[in-house]
């Protein structure tokens, strides 16, 4: 009897264990349905990490200024560029989006079309800001009259060259495409160990200026609210043919560059291999910071046009987006604070970028700093934006232009074939 009860009836300690297990299990299930919901007394802001070495103190002072102005605290979080897109997507799924976040230019149409971003156009108009916003950046965030992101800071690519090597061989930086080729060929003779002008197969932004410079476009609105690829039209093909011929016909690049990203190309410049590269204004800051001697060795000129003038270059940078904040007035207050006056200039200055306002960039150009002013000139005179449609984010995700570039550089396809193939793939994406 005693034996059977010992087995059948659970002893008190055992019973407690079983109950505890059940409670634990229940807890594990319910814990997953936790609620998000932010503190109504603070506004949350996401900023990308790594752009600005002085970001922490900027955030602290911005928070103090915002609280002083509105009485509402600011919760600043730094996130990584590399996983920011996924992070925002996940936050969207979980309903944990911040009030305001820094976003890449191509994301604005994408998240805007998904309905995650508020339209800032009425506020920009009410405050009379539109005139002075940097066109390339402003356009990138504006779809069908709705502006999904306020220009915050901007960067642009121009032609970096080794001023010391050029001086040694008495060469002058190119002002036309023909001169670019000639100077490259001269460098190949004079410095056989160097790479005169690496054509990086993984970098779309190195190719774009040549498409635009030749008068072509990557894609154009088709007139019915959709887009169509124009990357295989004669002007664009001419630009692609010239750019790739520098590698395939004239030997100004190396085979390894066929799979290089922009960072690999910069690395080859940094370790003294490349003589000319197309790269961004922010890289000059990084180079000079890593070794002050670089200031003597780099030269910068805007990217030349085919017959003189300038080839347009992509204006990249960041926008500030209002992710449907519960308090849109406060969100706009924060965006205004960050993009106007003291805070706008400070961020640009310490991060090595340009503020998103024409008047401020104009000041930089007028100051005439040799490593900065050519970028400012490129931005003001020949800044361009990529096709502004949410589908272009998809096209970039598929890497259609690097794909085209690589197949031409590796000799798998002719310029014509590769451009036709890229256009077909693009049109497929535009069609949905």
């Amino acid at each position, binding site marked *: 009897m005693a034996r059977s009860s010992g087995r059948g009836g659970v002893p008190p300690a055992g019973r407690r264990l079983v109950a505890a297990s059940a409670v634990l299990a229940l807890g594990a299930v319910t814990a997953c349905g936790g609620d998000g919901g932010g503190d109504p007394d603070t506004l949350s802001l996401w900023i990308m990490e790594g752009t600005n070495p002085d970001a922490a103190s900027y955030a602290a002072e911005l928070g103090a200024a915002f609280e002083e102005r509105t009485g509402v605290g600011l919760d600043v979080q730094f996130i990584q560029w590399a996983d920011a897109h996924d992070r925002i997507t996940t936050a969207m799924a979980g309903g944990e989006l911040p009030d305001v976040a820094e976003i890449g230019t191509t994301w604005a149409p994408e998240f805007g079309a998904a309905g*995650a971003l508020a339209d800032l156009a009425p506020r920009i108009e009410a405050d009379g800001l539109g005139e002075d916003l940097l066109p390339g950046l402003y356009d990138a965030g504006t779809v069908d009259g709705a502006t999904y992101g306020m220009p915050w800071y901007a960067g642009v690519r121009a032609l970096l060259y080794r001023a010391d090597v050029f001086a040694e061989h008495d060469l002058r930086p190119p002002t036309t495409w023909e001169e670019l080729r000639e100077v490259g060929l001269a460098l190949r003779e004079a410095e056989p160990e160097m790479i005169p002008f690496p054509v990086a197969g993984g970098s779309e932004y190195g190719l774009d200026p040549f498409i635009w410079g030749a008068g072509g476009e990557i894609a154009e609105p088709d007139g019915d609210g959709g887009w169509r690829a124009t990357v295989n039209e004669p002007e664009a093909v001419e630009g692609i043919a010239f750019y790739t011929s520098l590698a395939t016909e004239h030997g100004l690049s*190396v085979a390894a560059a066929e799979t290089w990203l922009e960072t690999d190309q910069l690395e080859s410049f940094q370790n003294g291999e490349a003589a000319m590269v197309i790269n961004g204004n922010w890289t000059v800051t990084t180079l000079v910071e890593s070794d002050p001697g670089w200031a003597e060795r780099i030269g910068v000129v805007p990217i030349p046009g085919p017959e003189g003038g300038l080839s347009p270059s992509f204006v990249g940078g960041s926008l500030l987006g209002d992710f449907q904040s519960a308090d849109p007035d406060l969100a706009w207050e924060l965006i205004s604070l960050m993009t106007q006056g003291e805070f706008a200039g400070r961020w640009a200055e310490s991060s090595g970028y340009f503020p998103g306002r024409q008047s401020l960039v104009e000041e930089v150009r007028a100051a005439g700093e040799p490593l900065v002013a050519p970028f400012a000139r490129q931005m003001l005179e020949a800044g361009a934006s990529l096709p502004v449609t949410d589908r272009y984010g998809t096209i970039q995700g598929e890497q259609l232009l690097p794909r085209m570039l690589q197949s031409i550089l590796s000799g798998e396809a002719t310029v014509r074939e590769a451009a036709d193939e890229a256009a077909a793939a693009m049109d497929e994406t535009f069609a949905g």
Partner: protein
Amino acid sequence: MPAEASASSGQGGAPALAHARGARRAAWTRAARPWLLLAPALAVLAVLLLWPLVRVVLLSFQNHGLRQINTGESDYTGLDNYREILGDPFLWKTVLPNTVFFAAACVFLTLLVGTLVALLLARLGRTWRVVCSTVIMMAWAMPAVTGTYVWIWIFDPLNGVVSGGLDAAGAIEPRETNWFTDRWSFYAIATLNVVHHGFPFVAVTLYAALLTIPRELPEAALMDGANAWQRFWRITVPTIRPVFAVVTILSTIWDFKVFAQVYLMPGGSGANPEVLNLGVWSYIQSFSRNEYGMGSAIAVLLTLLLLALTVGYVKALAGEGEEP
């Protein structure tokens, strides 16, 4: 007798009935107890594994993009995703052959190298065995991402160790060489990477299996005049066969779903469509293109493929084991 009847009639009734009720309760508790104790683990598994799995299958029948993520609405499109994938010649001409041949080569080489190293370990003296196992453990312990970057660096066409050596030997011209653009050389490097990362597990596991062979068996065989080759096939192989089966299945599964080792290679993230495998293709479809439904459908297909392979392999092995 139904429980309610015993409960109602037992109200102030005979002690025998109360006893029966107690026994039934005890039986129920006895049956339920293991489940209750397992409940936390099962709940965690359900939340962490089962629910995501169900979600992926559900997503694969939907058109799920950023808009759906933001609004939370679902747009069921039936078998459209599957139809589109299976009707895509790119899958049949590039992605599937890449995946299957790459996995087959990797599994074969991993097992070959792993077995040879296990046999070597079994023959080595104590000191050298410790040295060798430490070295191969380091290959195993290296994270896939780090390992991949090291291999990329070794094979860097311009400044890599390999191209430097071949250049010195006059075999190649580094400025005109790029191994990452060609499908075959791309996968040769990826295979080296995966085999290097995968063989230690096989070697260590098989070495453990080798230790289970009783000393007397090879000795007796030796007395009977069996040579080394015969001893290997008649004694070693049958003993380690079950372990071999397990490492084969595991390697097959791992090598089919290789992702980082391809994605991180130059051109492997989409710029060179020639080299995409199922894992990377699924990632590009879902995360680069924001078509999560399509990506899920590819993932489901990959899972089914792996299940079919595993089931087939286990059956084949079971059949083999029954024969003698």
